[in-house]
């Protein structure tokens, strides 16, 4: 699965550096996981049977195949926990984020 390349976002210093209106070249992530994840999914690869149900149900498309393992893009994961809830082997735990 191809993931889009992420480009660095440089915070504007002058008002003229701002885009005209809220539109910007695609591929930038100005705010990691929209700034509001409180718990993160962590996969127990021993228990995982690689059924990819989590991949199907993730509402943000943050789960991907990392070789023969499940990978999670934590830049985009909002921590909703749907993957953990749906996992048939309870192989995903939601761990509290440390601030």
């Amino acid at each position, binding site marked *: 699965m191809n993931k889009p390349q992420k480009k660095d976002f440089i915070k*504007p210093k002058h*008002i003229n550096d*701002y885009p*005209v*209106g*809220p*539109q*910007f*070249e*695609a591929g*930038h992530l*100005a*705010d990691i996981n929209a*700034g509001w994840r409180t718990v993160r999914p962590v996969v127990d690869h021993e228990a995982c049977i690689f059924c990819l149900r989590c991949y199907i149900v993730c509402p943000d498309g943050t789960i991907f195949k990392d070789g023969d393992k499940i990978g999670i893009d934590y830049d985009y994961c909002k921590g909703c926990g749907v993957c953990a809830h749906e996992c048939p082997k309870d192989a995903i735990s939601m761990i509290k984020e440390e601030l």
Partner: protein
Amino acid sequence: MEQNIFISGDEAVAHGVRLSRPNVIAAYPITPQTITVERLSDMVECGDLKAEYMHVESEHSAICATMGASAVGARTFTASSSQGLLYMTEGLHYCSGGRYPVVMMNANRSVALPWSIYGDHRDSLSLLDCGWIQVYVEDAQEALDMTIQAFKIAEHKDVLTPMMVNLDGFILTHTYEMVSIPEQDKVDAFLPPFQTENKMCFENPKNMAFSSQPDDNTEFKYQQNEAMFNAVKVLKQTNKEFAQSFGRDYGDMVEEYRCDDADAILVTLGSVTGTVRVVVDKMRAEGKKVGLLKIRYMRPFPEKEIIATAKKVKAIGVIDKDISFGYEGTVFTNVNSALAKANSTVLKKNYIGGLGGRDITKNEIENMFNELLTGKLKKDGEHVEFFNLKVAIDE
């Protein structure tokens, strides 16, 4: 050759739109705007206008469709009035925030309740804060000419702000006058096709209309406000270029009429300007020093111009076809704010009337001038008056 034809204000706007060659038109018919969108639909059907005409199911869809088309770089037009305009409100803010230069014709009409199809300014004036440039016209010719100018102003790279061309319902939309229709090749030279970087395209994909956190929101709003101020320069330049190409000069933010040595002036918006003009001429012939200040743009607001005129005169009356309940007319509020900044001590009076289509007569206008010429208010401290009430209101 420019052709002179006898048409209504609604039809004049339709011709202005046709000559501006929009790519997409989306509108929902509403009295008194209906004829405009019917004519545009006809023009598309018979091939006079090569545009996509979207028959949408509501005004909310009309503004969303034009905004969406604008976001891929199309020149877009919509039209509405009154309840329809208010139904668009959410989209109006969205459109200006996204910097999509949609052009809209609004046929000024009162808002319910009581239900009325007739004209006043309570629809558009209640939307001054939605980030659209607002121009008000005096006759059908100005309606056509400002429609063409609106595309040029709104689409300018320093502006990129949607624009509303307001004309009085029925008084302008449904009355007929001789209107000069500009030649297509001259309009093409004046108004080249819309080009913008602010669009979605395959070559340069963008994340469009994203959210912004408290960290950025103020900066986007600051930028929107600056764009509105940029419009002042652009609309003046556009008026100048238009006058050079077509021979009709409407002035800039305002038009002063016989104000130079005036003691008392009336400030107007829209079609009532024509009536006040006639009264000014009549009273001038009688030796009375009166004048007229026609406000053309409500946003951006002609603050400097109003202050400059106020310095010449002793009394200013503002005619408002509007009332912001619990206070005063909105035009008056805006004029007064400008005067306060200049510490002006000029006598001020707000005349509220013409609501729901009631005529404002020459006689009433003359009475206003006569009160202002006395240099004091009829009733001490009463700056706001509903004129021509048909019933007694005293206790």
